[in-house]
């Protein structure tokens, strides 16, 4: 199998997130988007490069980014595609 592009799982903990918009503004891959009322949404998980910078900069420890297991990756592809 050719070396597939790695996939990442971006988890946003809504109970901790305060919708500050930092992830939206700074993700280099534009994975996040602001919703109607300004809420942060994981809009393009499939574009995530796993750089972790959103995790480091989220002021509310609300983000986790992990390499997706193959099955999750497949699922994500299905969803994303």
């Amino acid at each position, binding site marked *: 199998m050719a070396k597939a592009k790695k996939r990442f799982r971006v988890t946003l903990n809504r109970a901790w997130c305060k919708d500050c*918009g930092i992830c939206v503004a700074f993700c280099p891959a534009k994975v996040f988007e602001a919703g109607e009322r300004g809420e942060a949404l994981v809009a393009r998980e499939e574009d995530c490069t796993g750089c972790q*910078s959103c995790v480091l900069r*989220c*002021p509310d420890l609300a983000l986790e980014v992990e390499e997706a297991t193959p099955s999750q990756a497949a699922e994500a592809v299905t969803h994303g595609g």
Partner: protein
Amino acid sequence: MKARDYLIEEAMPLFWCRGCGNGIILHALLRALARLGKSREETVVVTGIGCFGKADDYIRTHSIHGTHGRALAIATGVKAVNPGLTVLALMGDGDCATIGGNHLIHAARRNIGVTAVVANNLNYGMTGGQFSATTPQGARSSTSSFGNPESGFDLCRLAGAAGAALVARATVYHAALLESLLVEAISCPGFSLVEVMSSCPVYYGRYNGIPDPAAMMRWWQESAVPASRYAELAPEEKQGRFPIGRLGGSDRPAFSERYARVQEAAQAGAGRWIQAGTDR
């Protein structure tokens, strides 16, 4: 342990405002502890009073939430008695450098093996955004509507001049750098200070035209310059910018190392005649 293992999840979500930088510092600190493999038992967090001073509510190590400005004095007592502990003093700029300024300079001079982590949000967040000893001259705050007539400290320079073993600065934007500086500081046997320029969008930001959390982050991104590059900037270019990274420190034996010599001498020596003071 992983970073999250140091976090008291029951206490979440954080008390801090939307976009506040304190959570970023907290997270970096937990990662640094994890990287160093510190156990909960051997780690003591001392806080003062202020927004960042509430960090101990979220950290699953030993801790003491003390009085405003006195975290370093308390930390000094802890470390002096048990030099084997890793002692962290987490403070706001007001806590550390305004009311706590005396303990800061003396902790540095004494070279006590404590790591001071200062969330410098350029004002007193907890009490409603008054100016502090780090608020830049001219900046607005709830007690400087006409612009701050005082100048702010360069905290790293101050602590360095007082004798700190290590002084370093990061911003909440530079979270990875922050983590490594914390690792370096905690590993330093003498007194270390890590100043973190932090966002208070609700007060400092609002009073000074940057109420948006992301905009504050961008402000840090633009104004911070790695120390080596900063040194080469022309004076005009330095305006509104500041250096980040390790910024100095002096290599002297830590207090506990020296005090061990005192204990040895005392154990060898005898008593002496005490001379009474004549006054006051």
